[in-house]
């Protein structure tokens, strides 16, 4: 495994700047997730690392060696695409063994056999090794596609939304399997997704992208708790962070240059005795939690509360914000930092 690095990389397609002056280093053995909406430049970044695109400017290095002008096949990377592409007339075993049988890779029959069985066990498809690829379910096919990447030990794995075509339950299982395999192999992974849950649960660090730029890089916790901008704050969390432009919440620690106040729904606390008045506009019982839509003055806020919330539509209540939990953003949408605030939030959460 190896370190992967992009230095000041830019890529244009006609008038569109797909990637703009992007610098990013994935350490050896690190799981980096690139998160952003469609068109943010995530997939182009991945293709630049793979060598499927050539940058207009900047450098790509793998394991310290400059690969900017190197052909994809010589970069020692493995690409897993969103849509599995298996050889339909091959068995699962032969699909998995294929990369090991490529010319130039000298593996003995026993080595190939051992490696294929090991990967099949990892992905729980041992019992399907004799099946033809076309006799598999969608989830099994995608596992074979991932397995075909795993039989090799490249410098880096590049994955482009590999779980997005699977159903929710399977995605849940594979998320944790992929993470475990990556940890066990000590693999360097650059993984692209627009699914915030995948990003939060799998990444060592998340790179949030917007219109070709990397706008923040940090651990999931950093990105969730210390987003540097409104854009980043909106990428993680469900329901989304509340963004309020008035000072209706009457927060005392609000800096004077703050234009927008951000409060995560779990940081809104019902407090019938003090706090600002609010009306319940909608109640969603999601089983484990309840989401309230509240109207406070002209603002609308989501609050995420425990299971048993007896409030009904039309009820009046009062709300406060958990101490130190509010995030403040300036006119440009950038967060106004406050070291002391974070500490208070930690204390409030621990209590």
């Amino acid at each position, binding site marked *: 495994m190896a370190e992967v690095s992009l230095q000041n990389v830019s890529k244009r397609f006609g008038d569109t700047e797909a990637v703009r002056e992007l610098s990013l280093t994935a350490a050896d053995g690190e799981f980096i997730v690139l998160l952003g909406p469609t068109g943010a430049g995530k997939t182009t970044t991945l293709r630049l690392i793979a060598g499927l695109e050539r940058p207009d400017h900047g450098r790509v290095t793998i394991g310290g060696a400059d690969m900017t002008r190197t052909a994809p096949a010589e970069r020692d990377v493995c690409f897993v695409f969103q849509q599995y592409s298996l050889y339909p007339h091959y068995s699962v075993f032969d699909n998995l063994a294929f990369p090991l049988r490529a010319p130039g890779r000298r593996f003995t029959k026993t080595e190939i056999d051992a490696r294929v069985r090991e990967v099949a066990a990892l992905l729980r498809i041992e019992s399907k090794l004799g099946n033809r690829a076309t006799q598999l379910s969608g989830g099994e096919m995608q596992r074979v596609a991932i397995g075909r990447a795993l039989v090799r030990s490249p410098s880096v794995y590049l994955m482009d939304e590999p779980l997005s075509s699977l159903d929710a339950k399977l995605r849940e299982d594979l998320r*944790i399997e992929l993470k*475990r395999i990556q940890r066990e192999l000590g693999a360097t992974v650059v993984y692209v997704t*627009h699914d915030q849950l995948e990003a*939060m649960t799998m990444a060592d660090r998340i790179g949030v992208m917007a219109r070709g730029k990397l706008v923040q890089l940090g651990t999931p916790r950093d990105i969730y708790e210390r987003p540097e901008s409104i854009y980043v704050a909106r990428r993680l969390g469900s329901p*989304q962070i509340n963004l309020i432009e008035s000072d209706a919440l009457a927060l005392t620690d609000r800096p004077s240059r703050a234009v927008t106040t951000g409060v995560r729904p779990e940081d809104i606390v019902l407090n019938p005795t003090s706090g600002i008045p609010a009306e319940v506009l909608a109640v969603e*019982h999601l089983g*484990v939690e309840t989401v309230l839509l509240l109207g406070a003055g002209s603002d609308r806020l989501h609050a995420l509360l425990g*299971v048993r919330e007896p409030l009904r539509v039309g009820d009046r209540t009062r709300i406060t914000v958990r101490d130190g939990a509010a995030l403040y953003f300036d006119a440009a949408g950038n967060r106004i930092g406050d070291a002391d605030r974070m500490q208070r939030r930690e204390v409030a959460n621990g209590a």
Partner: protein
Amino acid sequence: MAEIRIENLNKSFGDFVAVRDSSFTIRDGEFFVMLGPSGCGKTTTLRMIAGLELPTSGRILLDEEDVTFRRGSERDIAFVFQLFALYPHMNVRRNTSFPLRVQRLPRSEIKARTEEVAKMLRIDHLLDKSVGGLSSGDRQRVALGRAIVRRAKAFLMDEPLGALDAEFRELMCEELRLLHNRVGATTVYVTHDQIEAMSMADRICVMNGGEVLQIAPPVEIYERPATRFVAGFIGSPAMNFLEAEGGLAAGAETIRVRGRSVAMPRLHEALDHREAVLGVRPEHIRIVSDGVLRGRVFGVEYMGTRQLVTVDTEAGRLKVRAPNTVRVDYGETVGLEFDSQRVVLFHPATDRAVRSELAAGQAYG
């Protein structure tokens, strides 16, 4: 007023039974969600209510009136397919009023009703704008306005949000529910997405293999599932199922899992089978130093203020939803404790929940 009653409804396509002996009543003004995996019969049921499909046997009553063999157009029901395809060459007014113009209503009435709906959706100031320049939120409202401008007795919706990404879907669910709170029209909504169902429904009807398994409000379905299928289908991450020892008498308050005794709500009926299945939701397991079960931490997933911990125990792999303040690491051995009054016992052969103190409130199916 629009109550929809389904009586002993059956539908077969050749050998395939799409809907099997369904009977239920959708109340006037209710937001009723039909939930299940693809092929469960939910869409077929909806199409029979709409008159797009004729039942093999059984009856459909709309406000006590038998409409089983009436044409769709004679039922005064609005079927909403795709919510989001606006006509780009028409302005907001023409998009919203489209269904009324198709019906060839008098001009003055079209104008009055379009404006009434626009006011309700707070898009009245946009009526003469082109749809091209609208924000995504306003586009949604125009689409909704077009869906409800026809004053039908009931609205039928078949996965109207299916094509949207997660963020947008969340917003739209809320808009739909707020609109329903204002309009109060009977709505039958089909989806395979349990979160949509949980967030919007007054009652959810869970179907599988052509059969209705349970009809109840979201919280009831979540806390007191009628069958193992319902329990597994609702909730994310899914409920954990553990193999346990059966042969339990009515009144039993403990069950054995891998030789250990686990407390559960007192049973109201016996479980004769040799085995049993114990269902425990991830948020009803606590990580402790000893506990009834022990296991190795297989995965820790960060989810904001919470984390999802996967633990391999001798009773199988369990998912635990824990606050972020609990520190655990991969490979660590931990103990697990169940919230004993919240666990559900299932019959391993019939899949049915065994009646207990937990289910005392409700029993269906």
